[in-house]
């Protein structure tokens, strides 16, 4: 059963310059024990997508569709219920490299806080005991409860963020760029840790990253986002070996393949920048940067359509078999 189910989710920001549709009609679900990755360039709406799950977007933003956490639509919740769902049902692993921890509070206090808020039966002592256990589980010495954030390295802070997300035993874990700004060795350790946690605790996990290669080796399924939409999704391995959407292929071309000497010399990359969500191109949002775009692409509205077993892509050429490999 899906612990997180997003149905036709849209989110629009309303700055004074005019509406900015940051997420548009996204369908995505995560089963218990499943790891789903969302990839895309910065500004494609992936972080905004995560913010819809716990309604962490600014008050002025408007949302549409449904986000079901364990079968319950968060958009319909009263604030009291919403606060209980926050961390209790779904928790976020924020980027540890950012200032996601309060700089003037000891780690222990910050980890104990959600337990005391959500578990009415918990005492200061029982909560602290649990925090120590969690630190141990994420591979940190328990004396770190007395440390301040600035005394820890980036990797250690990321482990703290993971321990923090686990404090209330959530059913869904949302990981927002959990490995960005960490060096490669530490990245691998963190991802192993996250995978292990998802497996052991049978929780659903959504990982967001701009690094497709990180996701492909660690996720069961992957969704590719572009300009606020999911443009392709499917089983991780299959999608990685056999990308259908031209954007996915361009994204892969940006990373050289290990063992393929040629790819190192010809990183294809992608010209230009992603469009500003407040000023999207007509038709397929990707067509101005697309290598195989035709006139039709600037007029036809593209939607996700099946392109294989468990695979969907939003491109008229793929669907007609033109661009498929």
């Amino acid at each position, binding site marked *: 059963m899906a612990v997180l189910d997003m149905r036709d989710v849209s989110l629009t920001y309303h700055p004074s310059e005019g509406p900015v549709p940051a997420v548009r009609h996204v369908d995505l679900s995560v089963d218990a024990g499943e790891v789903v990755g969302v990839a895309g360039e910065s500004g494609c709406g992936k972080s905004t997508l995560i913010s819809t799950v*716990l309604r*962490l977007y600014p008050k002025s933003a408007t949302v549409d569709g449904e986000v079901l956490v364990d079968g319950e639509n968060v958009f319909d919740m009263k604030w009291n219920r919403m*606060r*209980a*769902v*926050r*961390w*209790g049902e779904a*928790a*976020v692993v*924020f*980027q540890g*490299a*950012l*200032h*996601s*921890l*309060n*700089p*003037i*509070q*000891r780690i222990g206090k910050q980890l104990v*806080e*959600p337990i005391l*808020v*959500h578990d009415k039966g918990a005492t200061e002592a029982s909560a602290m005991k649990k925090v120590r256990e969690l630190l141990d589980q994420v591979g940190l010495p328990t*004396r*770190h409860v*007395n*440390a*301040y954030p*600035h*005394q*820890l*390295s*980036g*990797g*250690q*802070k990321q482990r703290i963020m993971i321990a*923090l997300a686990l404090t209330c035993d959530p059913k869904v874990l949302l990981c927002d760029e959990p490995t960005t*700004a960490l*060096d490669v*060795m*530490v990245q691998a*350790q963190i991802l192993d840790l996250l995978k292990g946690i998802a497996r052991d605790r049978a929780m659903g996990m959504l990982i967001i990253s701009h690094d497709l290669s990180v996701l492909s080796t660690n996720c069961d399924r992957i969704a590719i986002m572009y300009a606020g939409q999911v443009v392709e999704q499917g089983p991780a391995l299959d999608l990685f070996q056999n990308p259908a959407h031209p954007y996915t292929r361009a994204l892969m071309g940006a990373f050289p393949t290990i063992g393929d000497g040629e790819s190192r010399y010809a990183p294809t990359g992608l010209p230009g920048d992603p469009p500003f969500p407040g000023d999207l191109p007509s038709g397929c949002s990707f067509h101005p940067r697309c290598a195989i775009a035709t006139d039709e692409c600037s007029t036809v509205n593209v939607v996700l359509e099946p392109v294989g077993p468990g695979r969907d892509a939003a491109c008229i050429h793929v669907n007609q078999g033109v661009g498929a490999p």
Partner: protein
Amino acid sequence: MAQQEPGGVSDAALDPTEFGRVQRPSRVSGIGRFTARRLLTGLGTLAFVLVFNFFLFQMLPGDPLARYKGAREISAEDLAALRQELESPLWEQFFNYVKDPLQLDSYSTIQGKPVWEVIADALPWTLILLGTSTLLATVIGIWIGIRAGWNRGSKFDKNSTGITLFLYATPEFWLGLLLILFFSTGFWIFPGIFPSGSAIGSGLDPWTVDGVISIAWHTVLPAASLAAVYLADYSLIMRASMVDELGQDYLMTARAKGLMDRAIRRGHAVPNASLPTITLIFLNIGFIIGGAITVETVFSYPGLGLLTWNAIQADDLPLLQALFLFFSVSVIVFNMIADIVIAAIDPRIRL
């Protein structure tokens, strides 16, 4: 202040060894070391002030003997000794000064008493005024700043920012004059409620109930003038820091944890945002000790400010020199306290 650059990468983040040893997180020793170091630089500043004080007053024009004799009854021998001292070479005078930087035997020319006795007489009044106005300014200013910053762009924010900017631009003694006009003289429709001269009714003993009431009554207007101006300062700074903190990532973490709005504000945003305001409050306390001159003058309030003004009027240089030293030291001391308090709250400072 060794404040960490915002957005800068801390050394810890660059640490290649993932399990690099954590600094021993012991609050006491860190704070102790910091305090010791801070005391040392404070002493350095003090030394500068002493030297500066000496040479500045040396450079003053006029006959130094006339200034130092003042209203003091002085014997012929003492006078000769004083003259000899004043005519000795500069380095010798400086040496004598360094031996006795407080100039304990220095006499005020207007009051004919030792300068430190004169200062000790006026100090309690200044402390009463300072304490009342700082308390008011701090509580009200911080409250306004928190509320305005948290609800940025709200009606409360717009109104309070407008009013506080206006107060920030107001000379405190002018506000004092207005308060006298409105609440002391029975001008127009306002009854004269509060007294506007001295700090206590004449002939009252400050240690009686009547005396205390009279003191409180006399403190209202001068304290209000000072508080109004300084609360503007505090609320503007507090608001700006609140707005800065609102964009910080750790507040998003706090919201995601499911905390109530109030818990986020009190537990996370306010403690972080209050650091610059706390620094400013302590700095200002140091400055107001010597800076309430105009307000004390307007209200004839017999504190250190009025004393300074009288010393200026009468060219009482020994007293002025002592006041100069006292004010500088109070700024240095409160500066130091500010740094230590901040270091106690913010672990990043005490490195």
